[in-house]
């Protein structure tokens, strides 16, 4: 039973992890607390659902949902991010939240507030090892997530593109003076983080066979929490944070009860932040020298 709970926690963590990485790209790199990401997570799941309902095969529907999310994210970049440059970092939060509210309400109008059943892709999706039940979809999403994350962290740390991205992260103005094509790079990052969020949403739908217009909020906030626990800007931190939050949640449900989940999970987050203000694997921000 404990083993099963750990497996459950890890699988849950994989979802948080992808969302956390999407947030890390947005905040760590673009310095933009992008609250439209939970919306894109939801849009990923809901649109895949909608397209499948309209008769599209799964892969095509998933691709369609990803493309739509990428497109929406470009709108977010255009209307929420770009006009806010040079202001306080918290300002774009408003319109990105505007996008979240908009996406939720559009889905609400289209599909209603009910949770909808996402079709099972295979009749029995489960690997049964001894007493353990592990969903294939979950396993696949864990591996997929890890792969994406590893690739991403390599690009950021070791390549010229990564250096360009980190330059934009530190200062857009300097990046401009360095001849970095911000007008292209930033939208690319938006597309990437949207794709990650939407992919997480699709994997979520496949794993838990459900979608709803509000599915983004809870997962989104836990994703941010995971990112922060791990340390902002650190990709592997996001992985660690995601898994940790997933485990904390499952463990506190099974050993104490669901009424304390928020207390334990967010209490853990609070504690980590107080003890280590930059997160577990985050670096303290480098300050300009006096």
């Amino acid at each position, binding site marked *: 039973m404990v083993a099963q709970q750990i497996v459950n926690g890890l699988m849950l963590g994989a979802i948080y992890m992808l969302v956390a990485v999407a947030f890390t790209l947005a905040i760590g790199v673009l310095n933009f607390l992008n609250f439209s990401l939970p919306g894109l997570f939801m849009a990923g799941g809901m649109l895949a659902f909608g397209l499948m309902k309209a008769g599209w095969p799964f892969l095509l529907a998933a691709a369609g949902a990803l493309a739509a999310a990428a497109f929406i994210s470009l709108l977010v970049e255009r209307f929420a991010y770009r006009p806010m440059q040079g202001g306080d970092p*918290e300002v774009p939060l408003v319109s990105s939240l505007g996008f979240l509210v908009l996406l939720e309400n559009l889905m609400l109008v289209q599909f209603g507030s009910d949770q909808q059943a996402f079709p099972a892709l295979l009749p029995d999706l489960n690997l049964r090892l001894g007493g353990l039940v592990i969903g294939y979809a979950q396993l696949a999403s864990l591996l997929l997530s890890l792969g994406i994350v590893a690739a991403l962290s390599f690009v950021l740390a070791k390549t010229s593109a990564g250096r360009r991205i980190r330059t934009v992260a530190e200062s857009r103005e300097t990046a401009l003076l360095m001849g970095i094509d911000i007008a292209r790079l930033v939208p690319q990052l938006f597309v990437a983080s949207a794709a990650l969020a939407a992919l997480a949403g699709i994997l979520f739908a496949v794993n838990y066979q459900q979608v709803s217009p509000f599915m983004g909020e809870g997962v989104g906030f836990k994703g941010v929490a995971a990112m922060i626990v791990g340390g902002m800007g650190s990709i592997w931190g996001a992985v660690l944070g995601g898994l940790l939050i997933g485990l904390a949640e499952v463990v506190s449900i099974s050993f104490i009860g669901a009424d304390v989940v928020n207390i334990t999970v967010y209490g853990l987050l609070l504690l980590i932040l107080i003890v280590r203000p930059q997160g577990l694997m985050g670096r303290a921000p480098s300050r300009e020298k006096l």
Partner: protein
Amino acid sequence: MSGYLTGVLVVLAFNVMAAYAVYLPLAAGQLNLGIAGFMAIGAYGSAFLTNEYMWPMWAAIPAGALAAGLTGFLIGLPVLRTHGIYFAMATFALGQVISAVFLNLEVVGGAAGYPVTDYAGPNVVFAAAVGVVLLMLYISRTRFALELTAVKSDATVADLLGVPVRGMKVAAFALGAMVAGFGGALYAHHYNFVEAQHFNVLLSVFTVLYVLFGGTQTVWGPLVGAAFFTLVPELLRASDQWRYAVFAVFIIVFMALRPQGLVTAALFRLFRRRAPEASS
């Protein structure tokens, strides 16, 4: 005044108080995403006093505000070790923990919520909101406000200039918490019912939204933001299911046009420049 208008203005008054609770710490660079938690402390605290100890409202409501302020002070000390988005997340977590604690606190009803017997009428609520606005106007004219902005702008240099950065931060945080608690306490006694579910993340986040939308550069921003967010959905009532979608589009378009919020310092300068021109 019609019943409808009273109802809407009461909601506006609560939103204004909440907005200023967010605004004050924000002026010192603190994005408090857990303001609902402090409202809950004020609400439950004062309700407990009037319900169980028969305190009069005029004493219980300030007591609730103080309780929230004190909590802010005590929690602010460790939480203010964090900065920027980490701070925002810490307060977010704090808000979640506080509301989860009340959700499980059976002496105040737990998940079933907590009915409150004493009633504070609309006029009390209006007076309180006006009081909060006046207080904030006053503060914005003092050196305290100036130095809060200095701390936000460059804490290292402010420190070297002798500004007690930590003290300022804690003061701003605790004052914000107190205003939130005050609003919460009134909320409990006006609506005669509190439930932990009401004081959730979305309440915190939306309150922050009022402030940023109105603009943080001047003390009028939160007022305008709260008014916009309260009144525009009322105006959109007719469009029913599209109401919130249309509203969201409004937000996005407005922010794209006025990224620093509706009310900005530049706007004020423009008015000041215009005024003498017009009179001459």
